[in-house]
């Protein structure tokens, strides 16, 4: 058994970036393809030089090596003992990686005998390694990343999932060499020799190349702000990687190697750890499946699979998309291969930018609750999207009120609606019907609840107040109505309405018994599986006048007609349109919510959204703060009505 050599010194760095020719061997195949796996969760997978996907699936004491087909059939081509910690091709041969167990420490690499041949040991190395994490190979080298016991307790300013215990080993010509790399987290072998390495040090996260005993400069980006879990070179100029996000998922990104600007390839995709592979211009990954306590998928429709995407269809090279954002935005839209640079500005700054016809932003992303949202349409500061492929069909799939809101009187599609964020009341306990309650009745109900039932509620007072007033004002041009006066008198004396913060915040979407939970789609999206398991009754928030009146808050995207990247912006819209039609949680489409159509809760939410009416909000200052003064008894009801009506009239007529 050979021992591993340590390279004691770090060789000189080089900035040269090599490229290798990539031939698309399946140019007529779809850009997105799934390989279903019926035999359970795969342990590892690899892709052969001719594009065949091989997975190892554990049985009882050994693993089968299955060649997958897109139609779901699999062909066993070999087997190996135990569970391999890595599987890769070196040249045309398939190799698996094990760590020694028991008294010995080190790694064993075996060449798999395909088509009836016997497996044979390729190499064994005695090393202080506790667990191999992955293995990657090119024509004549293998690179292994494993937990290194020699590392001990060492710290770095930038955390990674593996607590800085990994090391990279290069195996070639029967030798094993430990590479001097600061806290590596992922490695992939590059065609033609060398490797791409991701890691971290005291200055942050980096990517660098290794070839012929030399390391390139460490390449960094502000947008690489978390540990890279897996990495793979596409063509020598671009690479893909899985990076931990703030939700502890591993998202799939791509970037140029020379100028690191990460762009998310497929949004919301949680890839399974180090299972990432590239071959012939395609990227292969295994989407993670969320498992419950019983080890089964939480979402019963989730299946194990390997996904293949054609890289060039998903990644837009060197193309940033500059986005002007509303401050209230929950997240930027998916980049579809473009790198999204989002700039958040105040209302005044945004208005100035739009009116000045600034050329340095491409898109404006805002919501119907933003005060200048409607002005974009009214002023014509948009590029019509009618001729962008897919947009008309996209709008046809939207709820009628949404389609109407984003088509102007001349038939121009002035913006692309992305998703709604609407507030609902959820209940799965008792038989109270909130759907027909007006605000006064709702306050009576909440204040009359016995203590034990009150503990099953969660009332967001700000949400309640804002929803009541904003919905009233969009359908009335004066506050001086008997209905409003009655509601206002009721609100003034209300313990609920005068509460600061959330009234009795006892339950959440994770609670089992919920009498009344007031929350928005945003929160609901984060806990979809829970809602999928339980059935709720869903209704809109109580109104001052019409009950069950839903006004969705729609986030939309408009194109800057003066953009200096107008063609890219329109291309982006086309890609986004196509992508949005596969999104599962936008609540803007008549056809519903994809995989969640079985959920009664979601069906009710869609039903309510279907009957919703899109309105563009008026500025808060017209009425909201004066109403707070009224609740705090700083002004009388007549004083509030006079002020609010005056401001509303000025706003509408000036």
């Amino acid at each position: 058994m050979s021992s591993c050599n340590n390279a004691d010194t770090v060789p000189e760095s080089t900035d040269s970036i090599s490229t290798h020719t990539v031939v698309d061997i399946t140019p007529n195949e779809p850009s997105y393809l799934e390989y279903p796996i019926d035999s359970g969760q795969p342990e590892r997978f690899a892709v052969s030089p001719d594009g065949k996907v091989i997975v190892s699936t554990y049985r009882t004491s050994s693993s089968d090596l299955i060649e997958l087909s897109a139609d779901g059939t699999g062909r066993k081509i070999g087997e190996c003992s135990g569970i391999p910690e890595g599987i890769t091709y070196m040249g045309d041969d398939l190799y698996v990686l094990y760590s020694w167990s028991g008294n010995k420490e080190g790694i064993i690499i075996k060449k798999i005998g395909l088509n009836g041949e016997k497996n044979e040991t390729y190499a064994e190395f005695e090393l202080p390694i506790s667990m191999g994490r992955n293995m990657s190979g090119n024509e004549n080298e293998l690179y292994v990343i494993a937990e290194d016991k020699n590392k001990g307790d060492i710290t770095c300013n930038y955390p990674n999932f593996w607590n800085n215990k990994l090391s990279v080993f290069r195996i070639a010509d029967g030798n094993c060499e430990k590479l001097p790399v600061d806290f590596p987290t992922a490695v992939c072998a590059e065609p033609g020799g060398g490797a791409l390495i991701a890691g971290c040090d005291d200055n942050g996260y980096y990517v660098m190349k290794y070839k012929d005993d030399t390391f390139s400069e460490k390449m960094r980006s502000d947008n690489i702000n978390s540990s890279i879990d897996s990495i793979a070179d596409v063509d020598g100029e671009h690479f893909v990687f899985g990076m931990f996000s703030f939700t502890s998922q591993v998202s799939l990104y791509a970037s140029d190697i020379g100028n690191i600007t990460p762009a998310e390839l497929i949004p919301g995709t949680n890839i399974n750890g180090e299972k990432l592979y590239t071959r012939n211009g395609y990227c292969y990954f295994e989407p993670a499946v969320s498992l419950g306590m019983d080890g089964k998928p939480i979402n019963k429709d989730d299946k194990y699979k390997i996904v293949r995407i054609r890289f060039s269809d998903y990644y837009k090279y060197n193309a940033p998309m500059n986005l002007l954002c509303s401050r209230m935005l929950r997240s930027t839209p998916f980049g579809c291969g473009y790198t999204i640079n989002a700039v958040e500005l105040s209302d005044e700054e945004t208005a100035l930018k739009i009116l000045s016809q600034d050329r340095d932003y491409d898109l404006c992303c805002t919501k119907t609750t933003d005060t200048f949202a409607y002005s974009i349409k009214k002023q014509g500061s948009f590029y019509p999207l009618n001729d962008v492929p897919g947009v008309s069909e996209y709008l046809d799939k939207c709820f009628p009120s949404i389609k109407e809101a984003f088509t102007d009187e001349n038939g121009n599609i002035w913006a692309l609606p992305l998703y709604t964020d609407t507030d609902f009341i959820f209940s799965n306990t008792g038989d109270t019907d909130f759907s027909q309650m007006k605000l006064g009745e709702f306050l009576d109900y909440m204040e009359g609840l016995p203590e034990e039932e009150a503990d099953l509620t969660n009332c967001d007072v700000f949400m309640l107040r804002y929803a009541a007033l904003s919905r009233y004002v969009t359908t009335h041009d004066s506050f001086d109505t008997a209905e409003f006066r009655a509601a206002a008198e009721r609100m003034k004396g209300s313990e609920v309405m005068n509460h600061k913060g959330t009234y009795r915040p006892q339950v959440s979407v994770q609670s089992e018994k919920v009498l009344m939970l007031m929350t928005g789609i945003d929160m609901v999206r984060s806990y979809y599986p829970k809602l999928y398991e339980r059935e709720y009754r869903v209704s809109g928030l109580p109104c001052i006048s019409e009950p069950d009146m839903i006004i969705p808050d729609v986030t939309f995207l408009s194109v800057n007609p003066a953009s200096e990247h107008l063609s890219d912006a329109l291309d982006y819209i086309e890609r986004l349109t196509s992508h949005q039609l596969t999104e599962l949680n936008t609540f803007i489409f008549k056809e519903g919510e994809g995989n969640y159509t079985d959920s009664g809760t979601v069906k009710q939410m869609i039903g309510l959204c279907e009957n919703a009416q899109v309105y563009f909000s008026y500025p808060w200052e017209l009425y909201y703060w004066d109403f707070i003064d009224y609740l705090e008894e700083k002004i009388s009801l007549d004083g509030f009505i006079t002020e609010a009506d005056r401001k509303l009239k000025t706003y509408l007529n000036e």
Partner: protein
Amino acid sequence: MMKKHLKFNTKCKLCLLPSLAGTAVFFVIPYIRVLYYSLIDNQFRCNFVGLDNYIETLNNEYFRLALVNSMLIIAIAVPVLIVLALVISLVLSFGIRKLKKLRTAFILPMLIPTASVVLIWRTLFTDTATPLPIYMLFIWKNIGICIILLTAAFTGIDENIYEAARLDGAGAFTLHRKITVPMIMPTLLFTVLLSIVNSFRVFKESYLFYGTNYPPDHSYTLQYYMNNNFLKLDYQSLATSAVLTSLLVFLIVIAGMALQRRWDR
């Protein structure tokens, strides 16, 4: 001699060039652009609509309200400002010597940040039923510059003229009527015009005092109209009202200059 004159003229023009270039880039060209925007339907489609925007603006009740309120500031606050400034200037120029040391104190309102002043103003003036707090704030803020200008005018009058008039038997009233007033009239006229122009710029004080883009109707001025249209991205209303306001100011300045020429004659 002619050559020297021409050389001097050329030098003068060269010296003026940077200033003229700056004025052109930062004022003239943008003004022409705004004028253009006021004649189209919007700056993205650029369809010429002639004077439709102006007709729409002039027919807008809130533009007319804003115009009336702006003119009321000129009609009420500016005369009060000028009279007060005149009285104080007279006292400083011809009054007790010790008071002259207080001259610099009148500059202080110009130096104090408006936001700080408004905080105090809101405590002093809680009744917003009239625009009086805004008028008083305007007067308080601008009185300093008026006093400086008028005091300079007063102290610029040669003492010998007064001496000669007294020797001719002129009394105090005659002295001021025949000497002081004519001598300071150009400066007085300039001060009035400056105050009128400054009255159109009253916005920051009012916005901070009322804390909203929609103040009571009595304080809704042209600046509010323009600012609110800017926030609504209604560039055409903004451009049109800006052009109309500039025309109004221009007419006032022309009238003032005509008055001065007549006075000189």
